[in-house]
């Protein structure tokens, strides 16, 4: 999941990807309610649980920002 997020960031200058080791940053993990990993948070409020394929992550991004924002 982390690798895919990095690949997304490499493919668009609009995308940034942070991978966070949850146990080392417990406050941040608490803030985003991380109980299982991998957990991805898109633009603060849209969550993707588990490892998902590229298409699924793209759909999650479209939902997070609104489909009209993508071609």
């Amino acid at each position, binding site marked *: *999941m*982390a*690798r895919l*997020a*990095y*690949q*997304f*960031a*490499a*493919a*668009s*200058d*609009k*995308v*940034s*990807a*942070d*991978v*966070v*080791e*949850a*146990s*080392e*940053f417990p406050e*941040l*993990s608490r803030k*985003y309610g*991380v109980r299982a*990993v*991998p*957990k*991805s*948070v*898109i*633009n*603060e409020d849209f969550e993707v649980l588990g490892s998902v394929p*590229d*298409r699924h*992550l*793209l759909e999650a*991004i*479209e939902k*997070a*920002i*609104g489909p009209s*924002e*993508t*071609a």
Partner: protein
Amino acid sequence: MPQLLSPDDHAYLTKEFEQLTREVPITVVTHETSLVASGDEVPYGREVKEIMTELASLSPKIKLTVEDVRPSDVEKLKQLRVERIPAIILGDRQRYYGLPAGYEFSTMIAAILDAGADASPLKPEVKDKLAALKQSVHIQVFVTPT
């Protein structure tokens, strides 16, 4: 400095990194404290630097920079565009926060291989959609080492 990786790991990774066709600049932002508690302790601060230094030693294509920054030096962290440390800067928009150990060590290797490859491994239709984004997207992926 004691080596963290086994000779077998060294041999395997050296071979893997031969695939790198482009330079991979990596910046480690961390802080190493003395034994005296200073209030600026960074868990795994030294280990992150050591593991990344060892990785970088395995390929001339990996260009490592280490920045020692106190966690309280907010201005410097802002300048480096990292929000917490230890941090590994893999590109303009890619950050790893923490120690890449266990399963995440292979993530780091994969990220280096992707960064040093000529072409993105993403499908063309996915790349096209990403390239057409007009709005900023921030993805945070929470992981654990095991």
